[in-house]
């Protein structure tokens, strides 16, 4: 199993490996206590925002069962006005001179993803954690905008990239949400959730509008948002 894990890491299939490990853990930890969390959050930033609904099946681990490892699903809807998207492929995103921009007037992306959650229950009332989307798909309407290459530009249109997958660094593809969060339980099974949300959304242009240094049709926006929501524990 260790050899397989190393091979997977070498071929940059970390997310799939993580999912596999979580399932393995879940199978092994049959005596673990489990809980379910459902969250509804709204996030806001400059000229942009999002709403997200998620559901996580969580295994409690450790001697005092304070560590929480979960798998679940999340639906995120992102909406904004006038946002700049940058060249998404890793080979372009890592070089500022090679990265062009796509300015979209009213981006709106809906993403449904499998997600991973890791948390720690500090006390009966407070919990901290991190979650991230790993695999899924996105949909949304066609948007008009401008492709900007230095001081040159042209009108274009684009649609959300359909397939989402978490890889390493700029190798990610599609629209993926992640959160650092804190929960405060105001009732036995009801909590207020505060989170810092880091949300990638990605659009694909109708043609490979960027030609240099390589042909490209994928453009990504990285939004940093603060969110507030409610958690229901089941």
């Amino acid at each position, binding site marked *: 199993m260790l050899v397989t894990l190393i091979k997977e890491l070498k071929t940059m299939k970390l997310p799939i490996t993580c999912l596999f490990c979580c399932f393995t853990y879940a199978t092994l930890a049959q005596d673990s206590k489990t809980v379910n969390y459902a969250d509804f959050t709204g996030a806001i930033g400059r000229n942009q925002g999002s709403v997200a609904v998620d559901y996580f099946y969580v295994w409690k681990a450790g001697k005092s069962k304070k560590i929480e490892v979960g798998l679940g699903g999340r639906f995120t809807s992102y909406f904004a006005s006038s946002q700049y998207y940058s060249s998404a492929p890793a080979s372009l995103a890592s070089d500022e001179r090679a990265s062009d921009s796509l300015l979209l007037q009213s981006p709106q992306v809906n993403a449904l993803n499998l997600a991973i959650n890791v948390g720690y229950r500090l006390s009966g009332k407070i919990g901290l954690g991190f979650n991230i989307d790993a695999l899924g798909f996105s949909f949304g309407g066609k948007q008009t905008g401008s492709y900007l290459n230095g001081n040159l530009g042209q009108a274009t249109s684009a649609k959300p990239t359909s397939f989402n997958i978490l890889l390493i660094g700029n190798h990610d593809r599609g629209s993926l949400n992640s959160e650092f969060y804190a929960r405060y339980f105001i009732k036995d099974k009801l909590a207020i959730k505060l989170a810092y949300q880091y949300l990638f959304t990605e659009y694909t242009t109708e043609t490979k509008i960027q030609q240099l240094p390589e042909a490209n049709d994928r453009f990504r926006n990285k939004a940093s948002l603060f969110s*507030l929501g409610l958690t229901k524990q089941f």
Partner: protein
Amino acid sequence: MKKLFILFLLGIALGCNPEDATPTDPANDAFDETMATLLREGTWMGSGSYNVSGVAQIYDDNGKKVLLLNNFSSSNGPDLRVYLSTTTGATSFVNLGELKSTRGKQTYSIPDGTDIDQFKFALIWCQQFSALFGKAETL
């Protein structure tokens, strides 16, 4: 709970602040028209409810092309840019930079290699909201 909701609404309000508007102090760029060659010229016209007036002139100034906005005045707005475009809809354009001021004489360098016969429309364009404020067809 009510306080948190109010805090969230406040966050939305602060997060939706508009971009800063264009400066309004009159520009007065130094450019001697008598020492340059006039290549093309047009008159500014506003689009929709926006008022833009003055003259757009393209000069050859010692081998460098320059767009001169003369007796210029424009409605104000966020993120206003000066474009040279093939159409009034900014289908294909060259961004000459942010509009320096809503009033006065101002110059913008045109990048080498720009075909001014093709990019014959000078535009005042709100890049943030993709809105045309004014246009001048240079002939």
